């Protein structure tokens, strides 16, 4: 793995630490982390990154074509691997499964740290949402972690 990839991981975990700490100072009473800030950082990152990544690409035929691009080129540009499984009901719901998600793979596999997993997938939810928004697809992205290094992203496209 090259230098810049490591740096990206360090930066990512620091950004998360930083925003979690700031939220703890702001309000102590609620138990859940406020991840909307991290999600928004992801959103603007995805929005900008997609502009460059699609430069050499032909125009996308339809939504599914766009999703395939997200699973292959987009994912390998950020996470150095492709999505392992893409599923869809052809009605605007897509499920992307990554069996060795880069931000979770460095964390112990057991159940012990499962409660911290949402912190490490929030950024990526934002990245997906931002990228798709710039391609003209408005959607809701949620993540699901059942066993530690694998992660599922649910994309719900919002139709007008």
């Amino acid at each position: 793995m090259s230098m810049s990839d490591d740096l990206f991981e360090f930066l990512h975990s620091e950004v998360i630490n930083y925003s979690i700490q700031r939220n703890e100072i702001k309000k102590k009473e609620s138990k859940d982390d406020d991840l909307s800030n991290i999600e928004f950082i992801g959103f603007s990152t995805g929005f900008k990154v997609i502009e460059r990544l699609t430069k050499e690409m032909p125009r996308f035929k339809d939504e599914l074509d766009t999703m395939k691009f997200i699973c292959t080129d987009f994912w390998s540009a950020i996470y150095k691997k492709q999505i392992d499984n893409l599923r869809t009901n052809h009605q605007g719901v897509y499920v992307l499964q990554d069996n060795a998600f880069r931000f979770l793979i460095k964390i112990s596999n057991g159940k012990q740290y499962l409660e911290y997993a949402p912190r490490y997938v929030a950024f990526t939810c934002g990245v997906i949402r931002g990228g798709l928004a710039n391609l003209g697809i408005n959607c809701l992205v949620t993540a699901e972690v059942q066993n530690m290094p694998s992660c599922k992203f649910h994309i719900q496209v919002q139709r007008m």
Partner: protein
Amino acid sequence: MAVCAAIVGKDNSPKYFACTNPDEELNFQYKVLSSLDVVEEKLNAANKGSDMRELYLGILYSLETHKIYGYVTNTKIKFIIVAESTNTALRDNEIRSMFRKLHSLRA
């Protein structure tokens, strides 16, 4: 050489406009903005099956004095170039590479 280049955003808002002769700027703005309708038409046609998957849309229309070319990125940013009709040395490929350069500069 092109006489005018423009970048138009997703929502058809003007982002950048440049032309060689400042006295004619307004005139060129009219030309560019009216060509956006043609861009939309071409994009809709592309969505309806015909496999026009290139970002470069080709010539949008030609006037007596000028020719107008269009290019739309995946993120729906539009580039418009206006060239003089008298300039016959300008080939399609050169226009295409002009758009590529413009795109690289922007991205």
